[in-house]
Structure formats: C-alpha cells, structure tokens
C-alpha cells in the first residue's frame, strides 16, 4: 500500500519557494531518508505532508486519504530546538502525550496507557528517569524520550527531523535499532538526515531534494556521485542567486 502520495507539491515559505513541483509515492514498510543541502526544503517537505505548512499547489495523501484527515496514524519527532526545556513536565508526562489520541476528549489515562508509557520508557532505556524534569537530561536522553513518545502513539507512519543531531553514538544506534524494529512491523519511517556517511547503512530508499526533487529510488540506485553532485553541487545555488538578482 502507498503510505504517502505527493502530487506536484509546491510550498512557499516566507514568500520564497521552498519546495517546487515535487511528486512521489512512498510505499509502506520501508526506511526512507530525505537528504539535501541546507535550505533544500527537507523540513518544509515534511511539514507540508503533515499539514503544518500550507501547500500552494499539490495533492497530499496519507494511506490514500487526504493528509490532514489521516494524521492520527502519524508520529512526528521534530528538531529538539523547538521545545521549551524549562517547561514544568517530567519524562513520563511527555511520553504520556503520545497516548492522548487514544484517550477520550475529557478522559484520563487508563492503566493500560500507563503500562504502555512504562514499556516504551523501558525500550529507550529511560525508565529510571520517569520523573525527571526534562531540562536535566542529556541531548541523547532528550531525543530518546521523544522516540518513546512517538512509539507510544502506536502509529503506522513516522517522521523524524534530524533525529541524530546533538546525540551520542550509543543513542543513535539504540534509536536506529528501534526504527528497524518498526520497519519489521511493516511501518513506514521517513527521516530527514544530513550526514551522508551513513546513508547506505540506514536507508532502503532515498529522497534527494534541493527545492525540486533530484532523485527518488532505492538507495543503491540513486546514491551515486553524479546525483549527489547534482543535489549538493553549485548548479542550483547559482540559479538561486540569479533568481534573487532578477527579483532585486
């Protein structure tokens, strides 16, 4: 089944086109990397799929249904900078938020919700920190609790935005093992990634973008020097500069 279907997506962000005319279909049960240089629109692409940024043109579907009507099957781990780490909240409360879609509007968490939260904390080896305020965690630990929260949502489609930035090697391995476990349950995982070193090891498929879609396919087929050059090379940035000149 198709997990995500994108047709002719264009998103402008702060009045500049961030992604242009992207079309692709992502099949479920795979780990897909989204790579490209800074400002290539990687995060914008994810945010548009999630309906967090409005699309100018294009049709977005998740599991065959309009994207915004299908979000309950989605987990999203944003970049860490987005949070107020002083917020009066502890680790278990953060993870419990992942259970909210399973709790009725006025309802309180049930015993089963607490069980799931505990077992997810166990999975990311953070059980001893259940009642720690989140400011007192290391970068890797902070990432782990958001992974635990995403798992607690029990969704079918996972988006991770630069999950390995500011994270120690041990956490990176642990998180990636959990991602592989999700894949074995036929879940789909999309990861915005900036480190080209581990691309072959991590991803089944690769989306290479620099505003437009440069290539999409099996990692072995598209992760070639020519395509990487095309994605990161100077050609598009020169075009961008000229475009800017035209505007001025």
């Amino acid at each position, binding site marked *: 089944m198709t997990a995500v279907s994108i047709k002719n997506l264009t998103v402008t962000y702060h009045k500049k086109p961030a992604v242009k005319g992207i079309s692709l279909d992502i099949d479920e049960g795979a780990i897909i990397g989204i790579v490209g240089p800074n400002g290539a629109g990687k995060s914008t692409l994810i945010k548009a799929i*999630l309906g967090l940024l409005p699309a100018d043109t294009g049709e977005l579907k998740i599991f065959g249904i309009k994207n915004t009507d299908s979000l*309950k099957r989605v987990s999203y781990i944003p970049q860490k900078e987005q949070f107020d780490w002083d917020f009066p909240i502890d680790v278990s409360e953060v993870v419990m938020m992942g259970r909210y879609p399973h709790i009725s509007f006025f309802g309180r968490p049930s015993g089963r919700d607490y069980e799931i939260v505990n077992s997810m904390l166990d999975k990311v080896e953070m059980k001893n920190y259940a009642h720690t305020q989140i400011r007192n965690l290391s970068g890797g630990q902070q990432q782990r609790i958001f992974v635990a929260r995403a798992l607690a949502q029990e969704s079918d489609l996972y988006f991770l935005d630069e999950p390995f930035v500011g994270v120690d090697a041990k956490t990176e391995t642990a998180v990636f093992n959990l991602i592989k476990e999700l894949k074995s349950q036929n879940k789909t995982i999309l990861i915005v990634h900036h480190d080209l070193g581990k691309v072959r090891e991590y991803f089944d498929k690769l989306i290479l973008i620099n505003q437009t879609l440069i290539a999409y396919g099996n990692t072995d087929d598209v992760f070639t020097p020519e395509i990487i050059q095309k994605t990161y090379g100077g050609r598009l940035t020169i075009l961008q500069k000229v475009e800017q000149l035209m505007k001025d």
Partner: protein
Amino acid sequence: MEIFAKYFTEPLQYEFIQRALLASLMVGVSCGLIGTYIMLRRLSLIGDALAHAVLPGVVIGFMVAGKNPLTLFIGAMAAGLLTSILISFVERNSKIKEDTSIGIIFTGAFALGILLVSQLKQVHIDLSSYLFGDVLGVSDPDIILSSIITLFIVLSVILFYKQLLVTSFDPTLAHIIGISASLVHYFLMTLLSMSIVAGLQSVGVILIIAMLITPPATAFLLTDKLKKLLMLSCVLGVISSVLGLYLSYHFNFASGASIVLVSVFFFLLTLVFSPKEGLLIKKLKRNRNSRINLNEDIIKFINKEAAEINNSNVFEILSIRLGISESKIKSSVKELMRNGILTMTNGAFELTGKGKQEADRLVRSHRLWETYITQKQIEDREFIHEDAEKFEHILTDDIIEEIDEELGRPETDPHGSPIPKARKDN
C-alpha cells in the same frame, strides 16, 4: 497574641470586608490558574493588553444596561476576545511582529474606552476604581459573578488539562493528534478575559497582570511539576490577596497596589531564598564548593611537591599555580591547619596523618575515575568531557566504592600509576 488575632478578626465583623475577602479569594484562584498558562505560553504581554482592552467593552455594557454585572461581563468578554483576534490578525497578515501588534491594538482599545467614558457625562463611571481597583466596594452581584467565573475556570482547567498541556508544550503534536491549537488559544483568551473581569474590582486593569503572572512565576521557582505549579499559584494568589487586603484595611493603602506589592514581595523572597533555585542557596553552594576545591587542591599540591618548595614563598607559588589570590590561599591554609590536616614543622608545611589520608583519597578518586571512563568508554554524556580534575572534588565515597567494585578493584590506573587503597575510617 490577642492583638495579633484581633488584627485579623476585627475587620471580619464588617460585611464589606467579608465580601472583599471572598472576592480576593476568587481573584487568587482564577488568576493563579489562568496565569500559570499565560506564563508558560509566554503570553504575559497579551494578558496585560487584554486587561486594558476590556475597558471599551465595559463602558459599552454600561451604556446599554447601567451598572449590571452581567452586561459588563459580556461587554468585557467581547472586547477581550475581539482584541486577541485583532492582535493575531495584524501579526498574520503583515510583517508587523506580535509585540508591536499588541502595543498598537491594546492602546487603541484602551483609548477608545477612555474616549467613551469622557462622552458619558450623564452616566457616572468611576474610572479610578476601574483602573486601580476598589476591593472594599465589591457588591453582592459582583461576588456572584466572580464565583461563577472562578468555578468555570477551575472546571475548565481540570476538564481540558490534556488539551491545555499539549498545546502549551508542543503545538505541533497537538496539530497531529487533532487538537486545534488556535481553538485552545482563543478558549484560553476567553478564560483570560473572564479572570480579568473577576479581578477588575479588587486590583483594577493596570495591576491585574501582576496577579496573573507574579504568583505563577513565584510558584515556578518552587516546583517543576505542572499540577503543583497550578495549585501553588492559587495558594500564593489567595495569600497575597488576603494579606494585601488586610494591609489595605489597616493602613488605608490602595487595595490593588497593596495586594500586588505583597505578591511581588513573595516573589522576591522566593527568588533569593528558594531552597532549589534561590540565588542565596546557589551562591552559598558555589562558595562552599570553591572553598572545598581550593582546600583539596592545596592538599594535593603539598602532598606532591612539598619537598621542592622553599617555604618562604609557598603562598606565592600556590597562588600562581592555582590562579587564586594569596589571601584566599592563606585563609584556606589556616582552615586546614585548624582541622588538623596541615601542620608546620621547622617552618615547612607538612600533611599530618589525617592530611595524608585525605590526599590518598583524592588521588584514589582521580585515578579510579580515569580508569572507569577509559574502561567503560563512556562518552555519551556531555559532562564526561569536563576536566577529570573536577571529578575528584565531587565524587562521594559511596560512588568511588561502587566504581572500585565494578572495576574489580584495580591496582593501577590507565597510565600505570598505583591506585591507593581505601582506608577504613574508625
């Protein structure tokens, strides 16, 4: 004691004081609850803006139905909500940022209110009691209105706990799980307008923002848990209101100012003396730690290099080596001598038996720690990369013992230097 009791009971015989106390209680609770979310969502500016901007609503309510709490309430709510919508509208549809938008809209609304008041010659609105509060003039209908508002706010905070929490902490997650952050925002703005109405009588528009953010900010210095924060904010709000009211009664202070100053007093008190985050505790801890560190550095130094130093300039050498002023080093050395760790024989400093034990403990701690992080290849914690010298000062005997056991009681550290054995204290 009796005088003290009288201080509190004597005013209670008056009905207007009883009403004022009730009103204060409700302001404390409603502002404490809503203010917590206002603070956490960084909406203090909007809170202040709404407080001012309800004026035209109140005046129009007045024009329609005279001094009827219900129409005043509806007018204030409508003005508050409209203002918050206008503020977001300007921000979203132009490049004007939120703080500027707030400044424009709320002063505009406030000015409109003043203009309306000045045109209302035939109707008398006491602008000053509206601006500065007059808790002693609270009427029975005011009390009924405040009670309903407070009850509504308490219920909302309990029932919508999940929605308020997730939209405050992570609006993105809220969007994904189908909770509309903007709906919750405007709901909160409605509750905010309500709590402002409830507080108008006692503190007035100019100062109400203090009741909204000062008690929560004080509570935030005392706890890291949201539920405790909400409750503590209410308690602090109520105590400030009641104490402020008594001060206002006994000393004839303006009630609003008196209530606000009490709550600011609590805030400053907490800022300095809070057991967890207080400036005083932090300062004392820092001083204590740096004194212990210095003492330990001196012990290490004397242990290692005493033989090589010419004692006439020992303080100078220590001062240069450790980068600490000579006077501090002298006072540390005095302390060490007093505690029987250092002694002076023939004009030279020496460690006593107890001092040598202490030096061994420090070396042991340093070398065991180095062995531990090398063997276990721990590098996933940022603090590990701190200077290893720092750790010997902070590791407790229990942790050292645990490390020693886990490493299988090694004889030498990674550099091959011997690790001193633990000494059993008797």
